[in-house]
């Protein structure tokens, strides 16, 4: 009897693990209609960071949706930079991430910061997708070719060729001051990013290197 009971319990424990690690919850704007492809819940992190807080951010140059080339070094000495990598266009959580940042330009302005949105998708895909978001105030950059090279340089290119849902906050000296790579299935809470942007008004812990 005890053996039978333990078998049943083991089944329920396995079921518990399965259910508790079930599909990620998300909410989708009607702006994207039925055009969003839901891959379901993914492995939270599938890459190994190549940079850490305090490191100089690797420089890069990518083409933006408006056609111009944008380099991280363009902002050196001028603006703090928040890089927002999203995994892929036309997917659930990503589609409802940048539109939120689009209504908080004042927060970026007050912290003397610019936002750069980056995706491994190509320009035509990003054009169609971001058109559903309204007029974005920040540049959207394509890391399509060589595929995911910038994501790879930061150590956030996943094995299936998409980026992590990652945020890097870089100060005017080009130093990485904050990294958020936690779970591709979840949007980083806005207040965490705002708090980290506000910290840029203070010198880094341990002083400038």
């Amino acid at each position, binding site marked *: 009897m005890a053996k039978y009971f333990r078998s049943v319990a083991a089944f329920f424990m396995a079921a518990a693990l399965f259910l508790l690690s079930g599909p990620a919850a998300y909410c989708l704007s009607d702006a994207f209609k039925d055009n969003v492809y839901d891959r379901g819940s993914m492995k939270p992190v599938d890459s190994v960071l190549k940079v850490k807080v305090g490191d100089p951010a690797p420089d890069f140059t990518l083409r933006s949706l408006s056609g111009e080339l944008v380099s991280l070094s363009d902002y050196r000495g001028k603006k703090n930079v928040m890089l927002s990598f999203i995994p892929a266009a036309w997917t659930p959580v990503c589609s*409802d991430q940048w*539109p939120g940042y*689009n*209504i908080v330009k004042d927060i970026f302005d007050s912290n003397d910061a610019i936002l750069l949105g980056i995706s491994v998708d190509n320009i035509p895909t990003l054009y169609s997708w971001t058109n559903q978001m309204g007029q974005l105030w920040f540049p959207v950059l394509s890391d399509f070719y060589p595929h995911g090279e910038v994501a790879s340089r930061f150590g956030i290119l996943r094995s299936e060729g998409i980026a992590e849902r990652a945020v890097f906050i870089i100060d005017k000296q080009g130093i990485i001051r904050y990294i958020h790579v936690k779970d591709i299935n979840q949007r980083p809470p806005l207040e965490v990013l705002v708090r980290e942007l506000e910290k840029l008004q203070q010198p880094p812990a341990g002083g400038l290197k």
Partner: protein
Amino acid sequence: MNRFSAICALVMAAVLAVMVGNACAGAPPQAGGTLPDFELAVPQDTAARNYLGLSRGLPFMGKGTFKVTQIKADVVILEIFSMYCPHCQAEAPTVNALYEKIEKTVSLRGKIKIIGIGAGNNAYEVDTFRKKYQIPFPLFDDGDFVLHKKFGEVRTPYFIVLRNYPNGSYRIVYSKLGAFGNADSFLNLVIKLTGI
């Protein structure tokens, strides 16, 4: 029962609870149908409490939550929104205009109340949306998607119009995805559907 059995029993209970919870994450409420069972936190803001009519009476003394059927109004318009949703952002001024029209019309003021639930938005994100669009009616956070799941994981914005009756019963008269477009015509529709 030994300790192992007790732990197993607890795990089984948890699994069953999750299974039942998942089963309940059903379809959106339909006109003429029923609302999911849920309660909202009584707002800390006095003006919001007064607007909803939650400040007086025994039912709210020392209680932290309320049901939408307890809102002091003949009609409740519930918007499920997200600060990350472009259509919700675009619709915000129209919903504000609807609120203004109701509040400025003597025959409607106090009879129709509007509330919003921020699907997947925590308190900070709801507050960001409120400040950005100067939302005058109460908004509630649902950072963990608990309510959103109960409402069938609808896309946003989603509007539900509820006719409350004095005996505590209610009738859903409108439940639709998407912006309603024009505040005047939507208000006329609400009046027609609810018969107030």
